[in-house]
């Protein structure tokens, strides 16, 4: 399985994951998740994302490795943006290639669930001219718990 994992300040290239994963038909299926900064009904003027350099990359690598053990994948791409962004900006890309679509869908959703609930990123929103930390959503914690329940050990290490 080929993998590409990165955390970057620069805007994401929307077409890069598919270009990078295409493999002349070895994979019949590519599934891509693309996350965007939501406008929250115009409430949020900007978003700032902090992370834990070093741990983040290692953590994302571990999630991808686990996904590769659980499903038959040919490639996985996880690129996350950090720094200051505006509504509509692409914040994360998770894409996987596999021979069959079910593995691709499940692995992509799995990586996103763990990423959202365990990877060391923190969001801050600019609202009415001042910055506020975003609280974690319970739904994300539950999504990860469902996946982790089936795994040996409780944390991707």
């Amino acid at each position, binding site marked *: 399985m080929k993998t590409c994992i990165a955390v970057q300040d620069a805007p994401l290239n929307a077409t890069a994951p598919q270009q990078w994963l295409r493999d002349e038909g070895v994979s019949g299926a590519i599934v891509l998740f693309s996350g965007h900064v939501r406008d929250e009904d115009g409430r949020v003027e900007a978003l700032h*994302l902090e992370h*834990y350099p070093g741990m983040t990359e290692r953590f994302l690598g571990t999630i991808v490795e686990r996904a590769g053990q659980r499903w038959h994948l040919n490639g996985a791409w996880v690129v996350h943006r950090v720094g200051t962004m505006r509504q509509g900006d692409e914040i994360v890309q998770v894409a996987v290639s596999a021979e069959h679509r079910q593995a691709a869908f499940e692995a992509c959703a799995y990586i996103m669930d763990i990423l959202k609930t365990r990877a060391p990123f923190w969001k801050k929103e600019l609202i009415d001219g001042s910055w506020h930390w975003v609280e974690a959503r319970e739904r994300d914690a539950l999504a990860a718990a469902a996946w982790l329940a089936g795994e040996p050990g409780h944390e991707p290490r």
Partner: protein
Amino acid sequence: MIQVRFFAALRERSGKECLEMALPDGVATVAELIGWLEQSDQTLAAAFAATPCRMVAVNEMLASEEASLEDGDVVALFPPVTGG
């Protein structure tokens, strides 16, 4: 020596990004380290109190507050993550 790192709201509330310190006597777990920090630094105590739901990493891997510590460890404390 150990390193204690703070992120996000916990970093802002404590006014600290990183502490370098000897592993204090009687401190063998992350929970004991947090207890020791609360005792020794009022600003940190207030920051922990304002961030009751925390996550922990030891040497860049997620861990629980029961995780044991030894000399040379890098401990990171942070609020629940909100990426993606």
